[in-house]
């Protein structure tokens, strides 16, 4: 903040000329020629501006494997947000998606296993959004083979929608990681 720097002038009179050069771009190097250098030398050490803060934050966000929250969030619901230390959001997302998936299975919903028809193919894509939940459930032979009752039809929809919501949550974690969405 320039205001705090100017306030410091009263305690450090020898900086008056330095601040004047920065403000008006004058000095031994000419008008505005080295203004950015002086500006950085004075302001960055004392009080980083919003631009330098956001720049350093963006630089820190770009380090590492940016797709890790996306993949983790897809495999395990809420894990992408847990990786970013968003514990509350991650817990709520995990509870919602897990709850929806488990309720779907409890209603004897069907897990899509083949893609012979277009609707089955779309259902399979939705189910695959559940990540490890789908794989483990398939391995344990959970879910009904065919829809027998009305609640099983709702359960099938619950499972598919849980997968789609999980994809949305994983993409949200990726956006948080890349800085597209503010933390």
């Amino acid at each position: 903040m320039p205001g705090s720097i100017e306030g410091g002038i009263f305690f450090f009179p020898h900086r008056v000329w330095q601040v004047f050069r920065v403000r008006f771009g004058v000095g031994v190097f000419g008008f505005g020629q080295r203004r950015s250098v002086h500006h950085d030398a004075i302001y960055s050490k004392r009080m980083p501006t919003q631009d330098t803060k956001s720049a350093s934050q963006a630089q820190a966000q770009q380090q590492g494997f940016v797709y890790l929250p996306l993949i983790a969030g897809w495999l395990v619901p809420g894990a992408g947000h847990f990786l970013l230390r968003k514990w509350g959001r991650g817990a709520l997302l995990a509870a919602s998606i897990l709850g929806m998936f488990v309720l779907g299975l409890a209603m004897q919903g069907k897990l899509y296993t083949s893609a012979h028809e277009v609707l089955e193919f779309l259902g399979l894509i939705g189910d695959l959004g559940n990540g490890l939940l789908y794989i483990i459930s398939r391995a344990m032979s959970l879910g009904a083979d065919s829809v027998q009752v009305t609640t099983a039809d709702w359960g099938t929809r619950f499972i598919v929608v849980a997968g789609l919501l999980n994809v949305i949550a994983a993409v949200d974690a990726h956006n948080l990681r890349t800085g597209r969405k503010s933390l």
Partner: protein
Amino acid sequence: MFRPSHFTAVVLFALFTSVVFGITQRDKPRLMVRHGAYCFALFVCGAIVLSWVMYFIAR
């Protein structure tokens, strides 16, 4: 086996979906709660309104 009523299934669906929508579609916690509540109300009220519309169409 879990056998909910149709309305219970609607409320459960709206609850879980609204939580995810609220968290993922807004930045601030306060706005998340508001958006989640808005989605929940839209889901439930929309289901009730459509149910009555279908009821009168079927008569």
